[in-house]
C-alpha cells in the first residue's frame, strides 16, 4: 500500500541548491533533523544537471514543519543559502 506518491504535508521544498550538491549530500543534511523517507531531486533531461531544487519527504508533517523552521536560511552549501519551506500543495502564492 505504501505507494511511490509523495505526501505533500510530509514534504519540504528545497530551493537555491547548487548543482554541485548531490542527492546523497541532501540526504545527509536533512537526516540531521529528522528521518528522511524520500528525496526527489530532478535533473534536466538534456543537460543532465540538477535544476537547483529538490523535494525532501519525511515520515510526518511535524518533521516537515520542523525542517522548514530549522533549515530555511540557516545552511549555506557551496556559498548558496538553502531555502526550505513546506511543499503543501499550494505552489504559487500571491
Amino acid at each position, binding site marked *: 500500500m505504501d505507494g511511490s506518491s509523495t505526501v505533500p504535508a510530509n514534504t519540504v521544498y528545497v530551493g537555491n541548491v547548487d548543482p554541485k550538491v548531490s542527492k546523497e549530500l541532501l540526504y545527509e543534511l536533512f537526516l540531521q533533523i529528522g*528521518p528522511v523517507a524520500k528525496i526527489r531531486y530532478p535533473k534536466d533531461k538534456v543537460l543532465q544537471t540538477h535544476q537547483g531544487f529538490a523535494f525532501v519527504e519525511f515520515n510526518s508533517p511535524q518533521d516537515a514543519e520542523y525542517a522548514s523552521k530549522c533549515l530555511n536560511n540557516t545552511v*549555506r*552549501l557551496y556559498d548558496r543559502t538553502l531555502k526550505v519551506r513546506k511543499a503543501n500543495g499550494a505552489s504559487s502564492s500571491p
Partner: protein
Amino acid sequence: ETKWSLMEKEKRPGTIGKDLRTALGLPEGKLPPWCYKFKELGMPPSYPGYKVAGINWDISNLRGDVYGTLGTKLKTQRESEL
C-alpha cells in the same frame, strides 16, 4: 535504490562526513549552523533522545565528524562505561 539503502546504513544524525563539511565550509571543531536553531526551536520531534554538543550535551563531545548522537547509542555507551 541500492544507493539509498547504503546511505541509510552509513549516514547518521549527529555525524557529518567530509563532503558535507566541505559544502558547508565548516571547519572541524565548529558546530553546524542548524544546532543553534535547536536552542531556539527545541530538539527535532523525531529524535527524542538526541544529544547535541554545546546544546544539551557537553561541548567536549564535539570531536572529528561527530557533534551529536541519538539517545539510544549514548545509553549503551554509558552503560558500558559503568
